[in-house]
C-alpha cells in the first residue's frame, strides 16, 4: 500500500529509490515480525491450550454435567442451585473464611513486626532474615509430616509433651473441631510469614531515611513515626501482602489433604478440598467447576474489598 503511494510521486528516479528503500524496510519489518511471532508462538500455544482454554471450559463446565469420554449435558444453573442448597458447601465456605481470618492477620502482623525489627541497624540481621525465610521454601508435604508429629494426639507428640508439663492434655489438636483450624493456621503462618516479611523488608527499605530523621528532629515518638510515616507509605505493600495472603489461604489444600482429609467431621473441609473430592473422587466435574468459579469470584471480590478498605483509610 505504501509503495503504491510512493510511486505516484512525479520524480520517477526518486520514487524508485524510495520504493526500494521502503520495500526493504517493509521486508525487514516483516522479517522481524515473523521472527517475533515465531518466538512468541510456543508460549502462545501453551497459553491457549492450558490457560485460556481451561478458564473458559471451567465456566462452561459449571453449567453442565460432564463424563470422561466427552458426554456433556447442559443443565443451566443447576450446579449453582445445588451449590446454594448444599450444606457441605456452606460448611466449606465457613471453614475457609474462618481459616483465612486466622492466617491472614497472624501472618501479616508477624511478618510486619519482624520486618520492622529486621530493618533496624542491628548486627546479624541478614542471618535472621535468611532463617525466617527457611520454612517458606519447604514443601507443604514435608511441613505437614513434621507438624502431624508435633500435633499428634498422644504424649509422643511435641505439643502434648509441652502442655503435659502443665498437666494439660493430651489434646487431639487435629482431631478436635475446636482446635483443628487454629492448628492448621499456626502451621501455615510458620510456613508462610517469611515471604511476606521479605516483601515488607523491601518496602521498608524503600522509605527514604530523611522522613524519619525529619520527624525525629521534630520530636515525633516511635509510634507517631510508625503510624504517620511508615504505615501510609507502606500502604500499597500492605495491600499487596493482604491480597496475596488471602488468596493463598483461600486456596489451602495440600496441608488439609495430608494432615486431616478435611476432618474431623468436616471441621477442616476447605473449599479447594471440596473441589478435589467432588472433581476427583466423585468425578462430578460440572459441580467441581461451579465450586472453582465460586472460588474465583470470591477471591476477586475480597481483593476488591481490601483495595477499597486500604485505599479509603489513606485519605
Amino acid at each position, binding site marked *: 500500500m505504501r509503495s503504491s503511494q510512493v510511486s505516484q510521486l512525479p520524480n520517477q528516479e526518486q520514487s524508485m529509490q524510495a520504493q526500494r528503500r521502503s520495500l526493504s524496510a517493509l521486508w525487514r519489518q516483516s522479517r522481524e*515480525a515473523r521472527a*517475533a511471532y*515465531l518466538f512468541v508462538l510456543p508460549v502462545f500455544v501453551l497459553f491457549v491450550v492450558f490457560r485460556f482454554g481451561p478458564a473458559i471450559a471451567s465456566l462452561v463446565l459449571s453449567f453442565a454435567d460432564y463424563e470422561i469420554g466427552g458426554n456433556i449435558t447442559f443443565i443451566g444453573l443447576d450446579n449453582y442451585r445445588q451449590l446454594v442448597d448444599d450444606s457441605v458447601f456452606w460448611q466449606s465456605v465457613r471453614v475457609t473464611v474462618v481459616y483465612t481470618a486466622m492466617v491472614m492477620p497472624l501472618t501479616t502482623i508477624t511478618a510486619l513486626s519482624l520486618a520492622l525489627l529486621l530493618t533496624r541497624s542491628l548486627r546479624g540481621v541478614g542471618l535472621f532474615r535468611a532463617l525466617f525465610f527457611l520454612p517458606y*521454601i519447604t514443601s507443604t508435604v514435608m511441613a505437614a509430616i513434621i507438624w502431624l508429629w508435633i500435633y499428634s494426639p498422644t504424649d509422643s507428640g511435641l505439643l502434648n509433651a509441652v502442655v503435659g*508439663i502443665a498437666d494439660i492434655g493430651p489434646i487431639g489438636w487435629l482431631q478436635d473441631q475446636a482446635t483443628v483450624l487454629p492448628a492448621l493456621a499456626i502451621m501455615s503462618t510458620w510456613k508462610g510469614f517469611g515471604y511476606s516479611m521479605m516483601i515488607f523488608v*523491601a518496602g521498608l527499605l524503600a522509605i527514604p531515611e530523611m522522613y524519619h530523621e525529619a520527624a525525629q528532629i521534630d520530636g515525633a515518638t516511635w509510634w507517631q513515626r510508625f503510624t504517620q510515616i511508615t504505615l501510609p507509605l507502606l500502604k500499597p505493600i500492605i495491600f499487596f501482602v493482604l491480597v496475596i495472603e488471602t488468596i493463598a489461604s483461600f486456596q489451602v489444600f495440600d496441608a488439609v489433604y495430608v494432615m486431616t482429609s478435611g476432618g474431623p467431621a468436616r471441621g477442616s473441609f476447605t473449599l479447594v478440598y471440596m473441589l478435589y473430592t467432588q472433581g476427583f473422587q466423585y468425578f462430578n466435574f460440572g459441580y467441581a467447576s461451579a465450586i472453582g468459579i465460586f*472460588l*474465583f469470584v470470591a477471591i476477586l471480590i475480597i481483593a476488591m474489598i481490601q483495595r477499597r478498605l486500604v485505599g479509603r483509610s489513606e485519605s
Partner: protein
Amino acid sequence: MISQEGSRSAISSDRTYATRRLGVRRLAGSTLSYLVLVNVSIATLIPFVSMVMLSVSPPGALDLPNLIPSSFTLEHFHNILANASLVRWTTNSLIYSVTSVVLALLLASLAGYAFAKKRFWGRDVMFWSFIAMIMIPAQVTIVPLFILIAEAGGIDTYWGLILPTLANAQAVFLMRQFIMGISDELIDAAKLDGASEFRVYWQIILPLTIPVLATLGIFIFLFHWNDFFWPLLVAQSDETRTLTVGLSTMQARAPSTGFIMAGAAFSFIPNLVIFIALQRYIAQGIALTGFR
C-alpha cells in the same frame, strides 16, 4: 534579648541529656529486638530440629520436650535409600523440576524478548492477556485441565505432568521487563553484522539475562519440587509419581516416625542446597518482583 551564650549552653546540655537518653533507649531497644528475634528463630527452627532429631534416633529414644535423643542411628536413612519406590519418586521429581525449569526459561525468554524488543500486530493485547491469567488461581482451571490431559492420554506420563505448567505468565512478564532494559544498540549492532534473529537471542540476549534466569530458575525449580496438587492428579502410578505425592502416600500408611521423618529430611536436601548456595538470588527475586 536573652544572651546568646546562655541559650546555647542550655541547648547543648539539653542535647547531651537527650543523646544519653537516646543511647540508653537504643541499647534497651536493641536488646529487646534481639530477644524477640532469638525467640522467633527458635520457634522457626523447632520443626526442623524435630525432623532431624527424629530421623536419627531409634523409636522412643527422643526425650520430649527437650528434643535430645538418648541414642543415635542412621537406620532410618538407610531404609529410605533402600526403598526402591522412594528412589523412583525422587528421580521423577528431578525430571519434573529440571525439565520444567529448562523449558520454561527457554520459552519465557524467547517470548519475553519478542514482547520487549519487537513490534508486531497484537503484541500488547497478547502480552496483557497473558498477564491477566495470573489473576486466575490454578485450582479454578484444574478440572478442565485434568480432563484435557486425561482425554489426551497424558495421565501417568511426564509430558502430561510437565506441559501444562510451562504456560508461566510470571516468567514471561519478568523476562520482558528485564530484556526491556537491554540497550537496542547492542541488538542493532549484531544485526548489522548479519546475525540472524535467533542468533541475536541466543548470543546477545540470553547471556545478558543470566541473573534473572538464575532467580527465575530457582523459583520454578522449588515450585515444581514442592508441587503437590497437580502431580497428585496426574502422576498416579509409581512410574511417574513425584516425591511429595509419594511421601504423602507413605504418611497415609502410618509409617514409623523415624522413617517418615528421614523421608521428609531427604526430600528437603535440594531445597536446603539451593537455599544455602543461592540465598542472595532468592532474596533479590522476592524483593524485586514479588515472585511467589
